[in-house]
């Protein structure tokens, strides 16, 4: 049986409201200036909203610092990833800018680690395209710096956007792999607890009440027929990655012989005025080549049957009366 590899990229363009101190700092970078903030007799750069020692809120008394400063310490990044500020080998350094009493962590573009040393002088270089982000600037050894004529931008930086992503890879747990294989074969495979006798689908691989591990010997095939026990009509809300656009019925269906409802089963071809609690339905599987279980993962919070059911067809049997609908959903 296949191992069912799982690979998924979670990615979202988060925003930040930088507020009354980081906002002007980012606006300054966009305009070619590096700002620190006065904190008692010291100047903090990067600026903070509060005194890091006492927690006292600082008034927005900004001071321009740099553009040159001293490397306090550094490390060499030999193999940058696409998330690093420079796409060639570079140094991350703590730079104490002239006029500041604290150091900023930033990138230094240098020929190699042999060109880096604690105590060396570096100078800010601003990028051609600046958006009001900490990456609008990087540093170079003082002697390599070139003169720049910076055109200030317009307005204040009040909101910033950051594309954050995470790719994870793994494989389905064995009981989930058997469940996924069953779906590809046009079958619903659940597990029966030898303790309670109850059947779960999808199973979690153990009985969560008795805390007993279930084995392949506990696998059971469940009938593709069942009863609608509840439903809602979803008006899709748009978000990044959402492809649903039209309202559809999302039904909770209890398969015959199981003790755990399948939630969120899409109903697209039964008119709403004919759909009802108690209705008897049967899963019609897609042709084998069109069955897809990519959505099945190890997350039991949102049970799914993947994309294997073409539709839930009414069986034509009499409805199950309300008093026989299980309260356990």
């Amino acid at each position, binding site marked *: 049986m296949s191992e069912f590899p799982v690979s998924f990229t979670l990615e979202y363009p988060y925003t930040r*409201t930088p507020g009354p101190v*980081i906002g002007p700092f980012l606006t300054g970078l966009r305009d070619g200036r590096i700002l620190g903030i006065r904190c008692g007799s010291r100047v903090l750069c990067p600026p903070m909203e509060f005194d890091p020692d006492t*927690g006292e809120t600082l008034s927005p008394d900004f001071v321009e610092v740099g553009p040159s400063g001293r490397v306090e310490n550094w490390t060499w990044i030999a193999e940058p990833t696409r998330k690093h500020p420079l796409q060639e080998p570079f140094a991350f350094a703590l730079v104490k800018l002239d006029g500041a009493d604290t150091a900023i962590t930033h990138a230094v573009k240098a020929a190699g680690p042999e060109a880096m040393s604690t105590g060396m002088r570096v100078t800010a270089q601003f990028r051609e395209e600046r958006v009001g982000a900490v990456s609008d600037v990087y540093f170079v050894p003082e002697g390599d710096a070139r003169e720049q004529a910076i055109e200030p931008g317009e307005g204040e930086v009040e909101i910033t956007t950051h594309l954050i992503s995470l790719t994870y890879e793994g494989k389905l747990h064995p009981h989930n792999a058997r469940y996924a294989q069953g779906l590809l074969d046009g079958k619903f495979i659940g597990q029966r607890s030898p303790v309670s006798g109850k059947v779960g689908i999808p199973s979690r691989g153990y009985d969560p009440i008795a805390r007993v591990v279930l084995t392949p010997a506990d696998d059971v095939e469940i009938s593709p027929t069942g009863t609608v026990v509840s439903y809602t009509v979803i008006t899709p809300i748009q978000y990044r990655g959402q492809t649903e656009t039209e309202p559809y019925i999302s039904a909770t269906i209890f398969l015959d012989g199981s003790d755990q409802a399948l939630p969120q089963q899409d109903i697209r071809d039964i008119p709403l005025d004919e759909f009802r*609690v108690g209705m008897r339905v049967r899963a019609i599987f897609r042709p084998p080549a069109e069955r897809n279980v990519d959505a099945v993962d190890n997350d039991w*919070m949102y049970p799914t049957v993947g994309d294997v059911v073409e539709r839930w067809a009414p069986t034509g049997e009499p409805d199950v009366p309300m008093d026989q*609908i299980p309260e356990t959903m």
Partner: protein
Amino acid sequence: MAERCAVIGLGQTKYDRCLPISMDGLVRQAALRALEDAELTFADIDAIVLGKAPDQLEGVIMPELSLCDALCAVGKPMHRVHTAGSVGGSTAITAATLIESGMYNTVLTVSYEKQSDGNFMWALSGGRSGGQGAGGSFAPWIRNYMKRSGAPEHIGWQVAVKDRLNALKNPYAHLHLKDISIEAVKESPMLWDPLHFLESCPSSDGAAAMVMTNAAGAKRSPRPSAWVLAHAKRTEAGVFPGRDPVIPVAAMDCAKALYKKAGITDPRRQIDCAELYVPFTWFEPMWLEAHLIAEPGEGWKMVDSGATEIGGDFPVDMSGGVLSSNPIGASGMIRCLEAANQVRGTAGDYQVEGARVALAQAYGGPSSYFAMWIVSSEPNPTFK
């Protein structure tokens, strides 16, 4: 317990769609207001307990580290609590146990969410298409509750109106819907049948904070204390064979443990008011039943009779509740904070007259995490 816990400072930010302040600034604003209320400073704090909903909401991983400076937690114990939507309640309880155990004298607890930094629908769908939102997951259970209790559909509309009218009395509330009415709720778009748009909570930014201390600290405190009489947490899995998600066993067990610890035998009569976590209207009657305040099938009748309005015999969500402000990670703590606000007699226009004992509740996940506490104006009230 070695010590008694008293809440001596409350702080909230305004709740809004997008607050133009940084995450540092957000938690500091609530924390500084709570300290000011307690007439203390960061220097008086022995430990900090921070709560928020999953990190995926803002994309800041382990913010308890990056927020240490902002909360003056450097060199002090910093705890992070993480239980989905109930987290604000669990966080308050964690802070209370740090006092009760005798470990610390004075603790600052803060919960927050900056929903405008991300997208809750996206986060809840795990970044996949077809995410139905919390409303889509809960709507079938609500339909089931309506069927089994025989509740008429106007109950949901009534809760929507009551909570928004209450919110008009609370300057911190996100939604101030001056024209709210049964008609407006009924005619708002149907999002997750039977839930209309106006039967759903908003997406809010905001933070809430409390200062808690022991009996000696309470004695020194210049303002009234809210004494923590009891707290309880219970969890059950979101999916398992035989589960009833409408009236979860964990919800009943949590309430039973809570009342027992507080010495409460008749919650409806002995508790003066409650802040319950009601992100969708129907959870008010559902929690009244699941938490044993109403008999099974009778929760909706308390709503219908007006018993849960301010002035009724069991007011619920006097502050406007989650239906009026939902900075998720903070929402549970706001329930605890507002319960304390009532028994301290400082709730202003939404004060329940003579409130002596108040209940707070938070839930999270697919109705699977529960956190509850009871506070009182007296350290040892007697119940008859």
